[in-house]
């Protein structure tokens, strides 16, 4: 395994950042993490956790070790004490966090169907839209079994643009700052658009991973101040820590955040949180029912409530929830209805629900596209307008695409539309802005889990989602030879 680089090498903070960093203190956290199945097999876990896996479950998982179907090699197993407490009485949460042999029953799918690596000009950065995504951590407090960043979490070797194999690296502050400044300089010198890619200024960076909230306060403050100094207006931070370990949002974190806000008052922080199911934040009584509050709403888990309220008090931090719809976890309209309502009551915007990607080792988690749309639509019946802002999104190579509607009636006289049709709408083109809002109609295929499943029934394609063969698109990751074309070159070619 290649050694990681220190996050702050080749980077000199500005004097403003230096002053801020001097005042930031790190908190102390005891997540009581259990990593790996060996601990459960050896009984080397606290007494009350021993029954989390039955001996039969452990036997069937151990039998797969060292084979192609090894579930721990696919995705490491990890759980916090907090999440264990929530999960021990929740079937949905157990499916989220417990390893299962089902994960590797069907190894169909592509390594990278959204072709993320093609948008990576610098190690640890994915540059799409006016947004850059950076990998700042390679782990989380616990692991979702359906994670689609498993190659980063498991530190799997991926083929690099130069043809060598190495684990995906993390973003380095100095390199990211240099890239942002150079990109924005070229954009500014060319009247607001990059002459080659047509992209606008990089205004927003999404810190992802892994979970950036595993970083210490000083490491988070180093990133925030560096990005703000580089001209980034909004910093997103994608985290599932409110579900896995809400006590991470402690006084020391808010002390750092408030000091950051004083030093950089114009920079927005946008927390992109990740709740999949209301069991992750609502209390349940002995019969497993949610508990109504006398003045309306439902009773939250106290630690989570404390954290969400403390975030909500800070007007310069916004909170958006996004989650994939996953088989066995939240493919349940009632759960999603309660979740959307309770989150909105607590200042959390419902941003996106996602269709799972057609990635190797994900068949057990995939809900068909049309079924996911039905579940979300069903969940939004009976909710008010402000509670139903979430859209169902699927990530096409071309950009983020909304599954807007699914009809049941035939489209008369249109071959392929006999069973109704699906309306897809391009929300954002990954390379450039102009394609936003363009639509695509495909005939229904209730079993479809990816665009390629509609190849034979495209009715209308203004958005160009099926230009060329999307079958090839889905399998592209296996066939391409990145050694021949660098990601930057590829982005340029796409733009031309």
């Amino acid at each position, binding site marked *: *395994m*290649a*050694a*990681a*680089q*220190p*996050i702050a*090498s080749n980077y000199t903070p500005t004097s403003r950042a230096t002053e801020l960093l001097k005042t930031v203190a*790190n908190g*102390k*956290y*005891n*997540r*009581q*993490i*259990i*990593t*790996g199945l*060996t*601990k459960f097999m050896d009984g080397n876990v606290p007494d009350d956790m021993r029954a989390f896996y039955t001996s039969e479950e452990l036997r069937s998982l151990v039998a797969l070790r060292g084979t192609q179907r090894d579930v721990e090699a696919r995705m490491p197993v*990890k759980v916090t004490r907090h999440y264990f407490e929530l999960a021990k009485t929740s079937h949905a949460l157990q499916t989220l966090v417990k390893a299962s042999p089902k994960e590797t029953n069907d190894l169909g799918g592509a390594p990278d169907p959204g072709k993320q690596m093609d948008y990576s000009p610098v190690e640890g950065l994915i540059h799409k839209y006016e947004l850059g995504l950076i990998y*700042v*951590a*390679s*782990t989380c*407090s616990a692991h979702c079994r359906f994670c689609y960043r498993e190659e980063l979490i498991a*530190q799997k070797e991926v083929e690099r643009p130069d043809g060598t194999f190495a684990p995906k690296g993390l973003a380095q502050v100095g390199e990211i700052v240099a890239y942002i400044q150079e990109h924005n300089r070229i954009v500014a010198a060319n009247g607001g658009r990059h002459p080659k890619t047509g992209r606008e200024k990089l205004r927003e960076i999404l810190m992802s991973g*892994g979970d950036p909230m*595993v*970083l*210490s306060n*000083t*490491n988070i403050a180093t990133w925030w101040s560096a990005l703000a100094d580089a001209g980034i207006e909004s910093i997103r931070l994608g985290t599932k820590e409110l579900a896995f370990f809400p006590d991470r949002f402690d006084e020391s974190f808010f002390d750092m955040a408030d000091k950051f806000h004083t030093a950089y008052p114009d920079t927005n922080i946008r927390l992109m949180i990740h709740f999949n199911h209301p069991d992750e934040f609502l209390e349940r009584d002995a019969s497993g029912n949610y508990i109504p509050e006398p003045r309306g709403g439902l009773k939250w888990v106290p630690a989570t409530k404390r954290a969400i309220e403390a975030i909500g008090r800070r007007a310069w931090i916004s909170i958006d929830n996004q989650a994939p719809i996953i088989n066995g976890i939240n493919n349940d309209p009632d759960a999603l209805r309660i979740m959307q309502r309770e989150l909105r009551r607590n200042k959390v915007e419902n941003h996106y629900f996602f269709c799972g990607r057609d990635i190797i080792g994900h068949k057990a988690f995939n809900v068909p596209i049309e079924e996911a749309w039905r579940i979300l639509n069903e969940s939004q019946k009976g909710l008010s307008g402000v509670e139903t802002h979430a859209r169902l999104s699927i990530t096409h190579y071309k950009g983020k695409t909304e599954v807007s509607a699914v009809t049941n009636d035939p489209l008369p006289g249109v071959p392929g539309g006999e069973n109704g049709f699906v309306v897809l709408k391009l929300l954002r083109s990954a390379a450039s802005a102009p394609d936003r809002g363009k639509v695509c109609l495909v005939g229904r295929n209730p079993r479809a889990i990816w665009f390629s499943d509609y190849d034979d029934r495209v009715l209308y394609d203004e958005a160009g989602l099926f230009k060329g063969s999307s079958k090839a698109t889905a399998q592209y990751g296996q066939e391409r030879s990145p050694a021949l074309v660098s990601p930057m070159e590829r982005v340029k070619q796409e733009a031309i």
Partner: protein
Amino acid sequence: MTFVVGENCILCKHTDCVAVCPTNCFYEGPNMLVIHPDECIDCKLCVPACPVDAIYADDDLPKDQHEFLSINAEMAQIWPNISKQKAPLEGAEQWNSIPKKRDLLKR
């Protein structure tokens, strides 16, 4: 689980691990570093970063180094936190892989 600094850190203390640790969970003694077992997030980044292969997952800790589990846990409570890389101890190269260094551990 946690990661554990083992015997080969003694008298070397390269501190490359400190630079890559996302959580800043290393603590520094006179001639060795340790990991705070409660604060370690199990990311593994320090394992390949260590130039002398002194760091192990607790499940992989060699049997004859078992005592370093408690040395890490105990000294992390006492020694100060270290969050920035610094120069290794003088003579670090010569001490690499020398057996029985544990008797030289300074607390």
